[in-house]
């Protein structure tokens, strides 16, 4: 019999999540696909597929290839643009109780401002995740995310435009992720999420060419978990704002690693592909872990690492 009921709630900016488990942008569409498999209202939050000002076809296929314990993707931010998002995807999202956070992407600073300005007029959005870290777009995007000054500047500009939680998504493809995270905090971000995918490549030795049409892609899945955990460890010690951990979470134990490393919340991404119910299993595991280890609230995980 448990002595207490652990409190899984967390706060990001002005918003309270019912638990620290969310699904990563690009792996969960706009929610309706996975609603067929479980009640997605049980999630703490849902990060939508990236939304850009105009429709994007993305990269030619093949845009996915499996790698040892991972996948390499070069989707290229395929989406119908912010206007179609508001018209076609937002109505379903606003029916959800889970926190809906829109991932915003672009190739120049103005793109991010345009998307956020349009979404500010809409109900039901509980935050923005700013994608400054996608390795699959030819210009902008990644180049913003590797430049601390650019990160701070764009965060400041977005901060002036919204009171909603502003989360900056960080790339691991930098020398010092903590300094980029610091720039996001300085710019007024409510949280950072890390890590996005790692730049990678697969070559077909029979055809003597890269497997992906885009040649390179972003690596995700279990193979990158140690990189994600290390990034969260470094970044959470450099910042006072929350860190959302991403990268290779395939089990409840993986999620706990991130919480012990210093994350306030986590995102489940590629793991959804092999097990659509993974997020629910992780919520149960965390609850059980907290009961067994007498951890009262999520914030208490941070002090536990020896």
């Amino acid at each position: 019999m448990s002595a207490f009921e652990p409190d899984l709630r967390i706060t990001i900016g002005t918003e309270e999540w019912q638990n620290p488990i969310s699904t990563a942008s690009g792996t969960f569409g706009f929610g309706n696909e996975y609603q067929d498999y479980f009640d997605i209202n049980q999630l703490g939050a849902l990060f939508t597929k990236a939304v850009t000002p105009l429709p994007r076809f993305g990269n030619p296929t093949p845009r996915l290839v499996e790698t040892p314990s991972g996948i390499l993707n070069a989707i290229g931010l395929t989406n119908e643009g912010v206007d179609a998002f508001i018209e076609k995807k937002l109505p379903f999202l606003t029916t959800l109780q889970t926190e809906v956070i829109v991932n915003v992407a672009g190739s120049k600073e103005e793109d991010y401002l345009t998307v956020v300005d349009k979404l500010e007029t809409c109900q039901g959005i509980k935050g923005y995740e700013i994608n400054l870290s996608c390795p699959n777009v030819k210009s902008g995007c990644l180049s913003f995310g590797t430049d601390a000054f650019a990160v701070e500047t764009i965060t400041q500009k977005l901060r002036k435009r919204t009171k909603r939680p502003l989360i900056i998504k960080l790339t691991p493809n930098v020398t010092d992720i903590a300094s980029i995270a610091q720039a996001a905090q300085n710019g007024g971000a409510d949280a950072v999420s890390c890590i996005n995918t790692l730049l990678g490549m697969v070559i077909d030795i029979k055809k003597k060419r890269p497997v992906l049409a885009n040649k390179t892609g972003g690596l995700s899945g279990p193979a990158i978990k140690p990189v994600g955990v290390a990034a969260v460890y470094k970044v959470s010690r450099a910042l006072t704002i929350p860190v959302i951990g991403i990268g290779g979470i395939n089990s409840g134990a993986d999620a706990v690693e991130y919480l012990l490393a210093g994350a306030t919340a986590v995102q489940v991404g590629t793991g959804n592909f092999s097990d659509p119910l993974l997020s629910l299993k992780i919520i149960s595991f965390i609850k059980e872990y907290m009961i067994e280890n007498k951890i009262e609230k999520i914030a208490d995980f941070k002090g536990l690492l020896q």
Partner: protein
Amino acid sequence: MSLCEATIKENRPISVDFYRMTLSFENSLSPLAGQFLSIQLPLQSKMILRRPFAYSAYDAKKKEASIIYQKRGEGTALLTQHKVGEKLSLLTDLGNSFPLPTDNQPTSKELFKTIKKLYLVSGGVGLGPMLFTHYTLTQHSFPNHLIAGFRSKNYLPDIKELSPLKDKCSLCSDDGSFGFKGTVVDFLKTIDNAYWSESAIYACGPIPMMRSLHHFAQSVKAPLFVSMEEMMGCAVGACMGCIVKTVDEKGYARVCKEGPIFDSRQLVWEESPTPSN
């Protein structure tokens, strides 16, 4: 659509590289011809993506589904090693289906106003969904003829479903080692042009075969519906990995969600082989 476990009842080679797996389910499924399921490989393997395969049969009484798959890479090689009695995790009844005279889809209603006969064409391991389609149409007494092409006799599956079809099935071999010598398109060209005004073609096979079929179908003005294939991530429409180019304004569709079955006229057919071929 569901996430469930199934028990392997059969997993045997039926020709060089082709295998048939039959799975038994606790609950009933409701797959339609053209749809697919997605199989999780052993958790301890380094391969994290599920593998999608079209249904080749479904026995509603026994609650058993079959697939025909090709040992092509590491994942399918691992699948061939699974034994009868073992359990697998599956996502079931994914994607759309070939238009059927019994469904209420607008495309089907429009098609069957004029179409009185269907030619079901398969290349290699594409046989699976066409067998299922043949079975479904025959159950509903809709005239259909299966044309199955293989490279050579080594690839001709040893399954009872192919032998009793007789006048409802034509077998083609590229090398002439059995049946009609030539490709499935060569065979279709032997059909009297007069029949095409009331006939349509459904197909599954390699992209070059389907590209040729598309051009043939255009030349005889017959509708053609194809089962497309693309590397899949989530298999449920969330990740945008498996898109094909379409001629409409949007410019793309998901093989796992809007597909795998497409009217060939909806698709952009690039003349030179794409890297995914």
